[in-house]
């Protein structure tokens, strides 16, 4: 097909072949050659001036050249008309496709007024494009819906993640603070445990001294018990001696009483005898005075014996009490010894436990410091994660908006 741009550039009307140029064939041949050259340049309106030819053969060639030019010119006109029709069909097809696309209605088919067979491939291709587009839109719509749903889920998850990360950051912060306190407490516990160990050591020493004191106390109790038994024996002997003294004093008192009675009767008889009995009376009076002295003395002795009896009774009771107290003291000492043994054992265990606690607490302190360090790092990472979560949440929100926007856009295309 000739170039559409190769349409006649000259106004309608027939042109004559220009006179031959210098050096070109001259004469009638030159006229024909010039016409053919013009035809070679697409100027089919140039004709050979047959009238100017005298040679019949040249005339016939001129007429043949002109007929060929006429035919070519007619074919060109026909081709131009067809080109115009096809161009119009293409424009109509594109316009229809654009219209469908702009309106978003992909449900129908292209209905064109052109029926040129040359446009059939184009129309078929456009229909195929529309089908493909419809398929794409359908898939994009489904994808947009899925994207919208997924982005909503992503947004919810990101929001949840952000909230969780915030809670986690808060929890980590609190945990870090708690670990700091725990570190301080561990330090305090370690110091206290060390102090307890020191006190336990001192107490252990004091307890051992106490054990020795209790042992000495028990020895003393044993001695007290022996002494109390000896005192009891001595008191019993003393009591028996006192009883014997009392018996002797009773005898003496009886004798003194008899003597007093005898002296009384002697004095009585002396008095009855009158002057003759005066000496007798004097002796009787002296006897009586002696008897009375003896009785006074025995009375004092009896009082003393009574006091001694009371004292020995009290001493015996005290000795018995001492024996009982000594026995109880021995029992208590034994119990105290057992208790002190238990206490010493307990103190030893306490001391050992305090040392273990001290060491364990030091290890705990070291571990706590490491945990604090780790928690600080975790806190930093969590802070970064929190920032990332915020960004993710923002991105998810943006994605959700975009998905919604995409869904809205895709909704504009009707495919069903």
């Amino acid at each position, binding site marked *: 097909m000739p170039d559409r741009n190769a349409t006649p550039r000259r106004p309608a009307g027939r042109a004559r072949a220009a006179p031959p140029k210098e050096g070109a064939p001259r004469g009638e041949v030159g006229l024909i050659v010039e016409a053919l050259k013009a035809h070679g340049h697409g100027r089919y309106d140039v004709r050979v001036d047959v009238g100017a030819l005298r040679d019949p053969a040249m005339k016939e060639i001129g007429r043949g050249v002109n007929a060929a030019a006429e035919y070519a010119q007619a074919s060109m006109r026909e081709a131009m008309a067809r080109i115009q029709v096809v161009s119009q069909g293409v424009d109509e097809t594109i316009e229809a496709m654009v219209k469908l696309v702009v309106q978003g209605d992909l449900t129908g088919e292209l209905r064109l007024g052109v029926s040129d067979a040359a446009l059939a491939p184009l129309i078929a291709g456009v229909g195929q494009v529309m089908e493909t587009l419809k398929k794409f839109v359908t898939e994009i719509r489904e994808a947009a819906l899925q994207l919208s749903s997924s982005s909503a889920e992503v947004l919810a998850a990101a929001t949840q993640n952000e909230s969780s990360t915030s809670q986690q950051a808060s929890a980590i912060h609190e945990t870090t603070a708690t670990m700091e306190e725990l570190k301080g407490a561990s330090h305090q516990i370690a110091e206290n445990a060390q102090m307890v160990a020191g006190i336990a050591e001192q107490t252990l020493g004091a307890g051992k001294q106490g054990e020795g004191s209790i042992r000495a106390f028990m020895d003393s109790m044993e001695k007290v018990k022996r002494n109390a038994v000896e005192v009891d024996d001595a008191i019993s002997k003393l009591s028996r001696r006192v009883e014997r003294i009392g018996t002797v004093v009773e005898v003496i008192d009886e004798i003194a009483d008899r003597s007093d009675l005898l002296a009384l009767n002697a004095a009585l008889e*002396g*008095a009855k005898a009158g002057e003759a009995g005066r000496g007798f009376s004097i002796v009787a009076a002296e006897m009586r005075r002696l008897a009375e002295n003896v009785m006074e003395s025995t009375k004092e002795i009896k009082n003393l014996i009574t006091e001694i009896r009371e004292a020995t009774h009290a001493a015996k009771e005290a000795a018995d009490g001492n024996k009982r107290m000594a026995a109880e003291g021995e029992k208590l000492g034994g119990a105290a010894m057992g208790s002190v043994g238990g206490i010493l054992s307990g103190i030893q265990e306490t001391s050992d436990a305090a040392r273990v606690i001290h060491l364990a607490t030091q290890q705990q302190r070291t571990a706590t410091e490491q945990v604090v360090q780790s928690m600080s790092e975790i806190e930093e990472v969590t802070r970064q994660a929190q920032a990332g979560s915020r960004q993710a949440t923002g991105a998810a929100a943006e994605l959700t908006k975009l998905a919604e926007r995409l869904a809205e856009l895709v909704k504009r295309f009707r495919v069903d």
Partner: protein
Amino acid sequence: MSQGTAEILMFQVGARVYAAQVDDVRRIAPADWDQAGAIAATALGRPFDAQRGIVVACPGGDQILAVDQVLGVREVAEADLRPLPPLAAQCLASAAVTGLAILDEAPTPLLDLATLIQEELRGRAAATTQGRHRA
């Protein structure tokens, strides 16, 4: 006995001290006499612990008067032995108190022991009789 003096026996019944002529007393009995035959309660009252007994010659035989203590024989001036004033004699129910012995400027009842015992014995006999009559 010297001129103007007298010997009296001092004894105690309860809290009070009495005096008696030594001639009225036969002897002093020990505390372990036959308590059943002794006269414990008289017009002088009942002794606390009756450590001594005074043996008195009575018309029916010797009687023992239980006393708390016999303080001894004491020589007193006869001037210090004074008869009981009539008013006092009339006021007393017992006739055994015959006078007062002034000892250390304090009056001590002077007793007739035989009368004292007779009054007690008579009283007992009268009580026994009254008891029989009542029975």
